[in-house]
């Protein structure tokens, strides 16, 4: 087998996102939040035939439901928050087969969480596309106490689990579905720089 080519910069473990592109498939699963719904609509406009095979899950994006219905989505589920996503997706995966292509759009946290669930259900990584839309907020895991924090927007941030000040790394784990946070003042306890906003 030939070796995989190396990815371009930035660091290799930083997730890479791209505009959603249509693919031939047996069935499609689409998940989006408020910011990502527009990406699904754009995809539907590019490839109307895709929607007839698509199950769509909208997370806190009820206002976009009618437009996606109108584009012919085969199924449409809604949840009001990311907490409700996991059971909705598990239901849809229940009768899924190889040939399923997945399209994710929205915040990194939503993408990371859903991708992690899909991978543990056996969906191959190559079948998942993700387009980042919306905030630069990150899903973070504290390397010291392993607590996962949603929607982290500042660097450094305070771990909700152990209270340490953590700096935000670009190192990302698909399995955990989060970036890594490491104690910023370990060598100089108490010396914490002022937080800055995380940028995309």
């Amino acid at each position, binding site marked *: 087998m030939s070796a995989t080519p190396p990815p371009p910069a930035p660091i290799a473990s930083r997730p890479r996102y791209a505009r959603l592109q249509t693919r*031939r498939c047996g069935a499609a699963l689409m998940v989006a939040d408020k910011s990502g719904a527009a990406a699904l609509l754009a995809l539907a406009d590019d490839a109307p035939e895709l929607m007839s095979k698509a199950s769509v899950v909208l997370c806190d994006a009820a206002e976009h439901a009618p437009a996606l219905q109108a584009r012919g989505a085969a199924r449409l589920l809604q949840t009001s928050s990311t907490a409700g996503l996991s059971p909705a997706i598990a239901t849809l995966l229940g009768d899924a087969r190889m040939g399923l292509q997945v399209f994710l759009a929205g915040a990194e946290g939503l993408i990371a969480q859903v991708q992690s669930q899909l991978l543990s259900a056996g969906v191959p990584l190559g079948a998942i596309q993700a387009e980042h839309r919306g905030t630069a907020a990150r899903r973070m895991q504290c390397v010291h106490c392993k607590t996962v924090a949603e929607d982290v927007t500042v660097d450094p941030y305070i771990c909700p689990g152990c209270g340490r000040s953590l700096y935000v790394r670009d190192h990302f784990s698909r399995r955990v579905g989060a970036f890594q946070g490491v104690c910023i003042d370990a060598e100089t306890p108490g010396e914490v720089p002022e937080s800055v906003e995380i940028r995309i």
Partner: protein
Amino acid sequence: MQTLKLTRKEPLSPRITRFRFEHPEGAPLPVFSGGAHVMVEMQDGPVLRRNAYSLISDPLDCSGYEIAVQREDHGRGGSLFMHRDAQPGMLMQIGPAVNLFSLNLAARKHLLIAGGVGITPFLAQLPELARLGAAYELHYAVRARDELAALPMLPDTTRLHVSGEGSRMDLDAILSAQPLGTHLYVCGSARMIETVLDTAAALGWPGDTLHAEEFLAPAPGEPFEVACARSNRTLTVGPHQSMLEALEAAGIDAPWLCRGGACGQCETDVLSCDGTIDHHDHWLEPEERKRKIMPCVSRFRGRLLTIDR
């Protein structure tokens, strides 16, 4: 390479013969993983041939290695040598087991599709799958039923498709019915592999779940000249000879491993190229193709190729 004794030779079907090799002193052979192949060296008169053959025996059975060879009357001569000249009792040089077609151990199910002699790597994987308790489905396409005559126990669950009897594999149906996490493995003719992979892609299977093994026999072509800068020699590569074989015949050192364009070991720098290189490998990156060549499978057309050997 190790010296092994050919201990058994028996036909499995009109065109396929099974060969068994054991250690001359009965020592155990190294264990391997299903899908591995070995190089078999054949001294055919003045010509030294090396062909890769999948191991068909149980990977954990150290008492011997077995291969199955299909006789190709119009091939380069390796299979004819094995069928006509290799006899039990002979000592032969056999390379270490190398696996470029292993099972994906994280897969939830393995879909195995074989055509003709392409069943060979799967034969070694069947006991492995049984030991792992893994879910799998084996589809085997042959032209005529007599091709199956004495093949080692295929499980009852094998789906047979005998094209001479009008039964063809319904790829669409098979590929649409697999659970998430299934990996597909195909081994057979180039055309079968292409058909299976194209169908899978069209149905939405991503590339990371598709695995194919096809031993690239070096393609024949017009003879050409190659200058070996380091050795200060210019060689002529014959029409049925690979560049690697020409280097070896001239005593020029060139590393190799799979001899099928897949492993990268024989990667060679091109110092100058007055003509066109025909790359037949699966190894080089596109941007490397201007300045490198895989001598085990690739050829050249033009005035002169100069390589760093």
